[in-house]
């Protein structure tokens, strides 16, 4: 037995095929709309993910620091005019940092904790000296905060004794190659001769020029912070959950706890605004596509008046006629979403071939996530159905006698 379409889809398909030009136009409109939405969504999602990834590539998700020191009035005497001067913040250790680190490591959502001692120093070689940030870390633990091993251009990311890891810019500025010697001098008069065991390029020239990684004990002794750490760096499982994790830690420890979302508030606001404008564009495109489908079907109902009357005279019920036009809308939406997704894929390919990063790699991958296609198909079919509602109801209400006579 061969497959035969039921009444409503059969007639709907025939009507669409009969109104060739109209069907093509309405399909083109839907295809264009879907393509814009899918393309835009995919592009913005990818770019945003990349920006966030890049920003978080060189910083911790959450950082725990000691509370800032503040001057307080000794006597709470009302009626006295007082001026409280802000205090200069000296380098201090996180109080009982081992306990804090244990607490943080045990907290839900935290995947890694790394103690860091950081302070200012000068890198000196011959007549040249550069201002740097000394970073005392446990290399193994720090790797789980910033994936340093991915950024190494020479040597390994390992610190031991007086072996240090520096950035490419500093190496260039001071003319240093792997295994060369380098002296660091501190404001407190201490200094140390380091041997460069690795050179990194973290993708940020400023950091490439400033960071010098040494062992935790060396940094502690150079910075006069024996046994102490200036901050604890944390990695969390879900980067957008960093803020709640930070809030919980602040509540539990009473220390200064900052998430990347606070540190990069402007970036987050920018991303959010981008999402809002993206949603706005999507909504308008959907409305325009819906209006397009609706208006073409309204015209089609008027053109098909006679046919509708004939079908009704032959026993077709109002709901059957309603279905015929609803299916037309849904079909246009469904086919438009498939074509639109294909077009979006082509656009993504074209754009990724044209726009490239500074290092020549494509700005974004020319790929379509299946969930976007599925989403587009569902939305487009739904929009098609919804926009067919008014024309379909008009068709169903038509008086068969009037329809046949006209």
């Amino acid at each position, binding site marked *: 037995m061969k497959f*035969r379409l039921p009444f409503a889809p059969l007639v709907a398909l025939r009507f669409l095929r009969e109104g060739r030009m109209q069907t093509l136009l309405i399909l083109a409109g839907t295809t264009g709309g879907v393509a814009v939405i899918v393309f835009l969504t995919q592009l913005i999602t990818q770019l945003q993910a990349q920006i966030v990834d890049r920003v978080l590539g060189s910083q911790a998700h959450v950082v725990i620091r000691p509370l800032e020191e503040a001057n307080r009035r000794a006597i709470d005497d009302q009626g006295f005019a007082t001026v409280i001067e802000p205090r200069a913040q000296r380098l201090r250790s996180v109080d009982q940092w081992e306990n804090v680190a244990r607490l943080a490591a045990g907290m839900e959502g935290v995947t890694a904790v790394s103690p860091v001692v950081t302070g200012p120093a000068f890198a000196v070689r011959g007549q040249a000296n550069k201002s740097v940030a000394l970073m005392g870390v446990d290399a193994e633990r720090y790797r789980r905060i910033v994936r340093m091993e991915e950024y190494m251009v020479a040597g390994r990311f390992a610190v031991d004794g007086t072996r240090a890891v520096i950035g490419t810019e500093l190496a260039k500025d001071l003319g240093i190659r792997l295994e060369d010697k380098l002296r660091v001098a501190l404001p407190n008069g201490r200094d140390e001769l380091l041997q460069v065991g690795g050179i990194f390029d973290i993708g940020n020239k400023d950091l490439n020029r400033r960071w010098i990684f040494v062992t935790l004990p060396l940094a502690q002794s150079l910075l006069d912070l024996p046994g102490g750490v200036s901050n604890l760096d944390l990695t969390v499982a879900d980067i957008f959950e960093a803020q709640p994790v930070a809030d919980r830690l602040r509540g539990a420890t009473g220390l200064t706890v900052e998430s990347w979302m606070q540190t990069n508030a402007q970036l987050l606001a920018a991303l959010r605004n981008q999402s809002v404008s993206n949603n706005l564009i999507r909504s308008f495109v959907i409305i325009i596509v819906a209006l397009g489908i609706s208006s073409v079907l309204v015209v089609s109902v008027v053109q098909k008046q006679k046919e509708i009357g004939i079908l009704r005279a*032959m026993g077709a019920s109002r709901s059957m006629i309603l279905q015929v036009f609803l299916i037309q809308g849904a079909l246009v939406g469904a086919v438009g979403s498939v074509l639109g997704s294909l077009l979006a894929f082509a656009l993504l390919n074209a754009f990724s071939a044209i726009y490239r990063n500074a290092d020549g790699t494509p700005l974004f991958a020319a790929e379509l996530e299946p969930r976007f296609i599925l989403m587009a198909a569902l939305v487009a079919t739904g929009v098609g159905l919804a926009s067919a509602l008014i024309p379909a109801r008009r068709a169903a209400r038509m008086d068969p006698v009037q329809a046949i006579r006209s």
Partner: protein
Amino acid sequence: MNSPVIDLAGIVKTYGIGSPVETEVLHGIDLRLAEGEFAALIGPSGSGKSTLLNLIGLLERPTGGRLSIGGRDTATLNEAEITQLRGRSIGFVFQFHHLLPAFSAMENVMMPGIIARGAADDELEATALQLLDAVGLKAHAYKKPSELSGGQQQRVAIARALALKPRLILADEPTGNLDTHTADDIFALLREFNRQTNCACLIVTHDPRLAARCDRIVRLVDGRIADDLPTEKETNP
């Protein structure tokens, strides 16, 4: 004889009720048509022929009076039941064939069946082919209406009207826009099916020659039945 296919008693139809242009088009029509009867409905333009045909065809509802089709009082039926009754027991032949241009002759003939059953099936296809054969169009079964002549289109329309073996065929000037020769053919076809299936036929016509070939002539004047007489002699085609 069992219950008449058409049974009208005191049918009144008024348009524009409550408006200043309220007009009563039919003023109490009594009409019965038994199974197998072949009647002509004649009368001058504006006498209410089309309105009466639309009422009998259940395309419109009367303002007053009793209207039974196939023994069922239509006043008790709801919209969906009316639609179903119309689809299953009445076949229409219009003056202008009114075929669906997007469908082939075959599909047009199958359409009442597709509507009644939800989708086409082998039986509907066989019946449609048989009917097209009977109206002499088997060779044109897969052509679109636009590829057929006026007479052929009307033959397809007749085949379509017969698709569900209706008890009643209503034809509104089925030969109105055809030449005499073709008109005779079409009329003969209707007559033949009437004999074969014993369905009741009511045919609106302006052509006195064709009316004379029916069993009975109902003449409508100003919304009333002026006379309702059997024809004197039966003409065989």
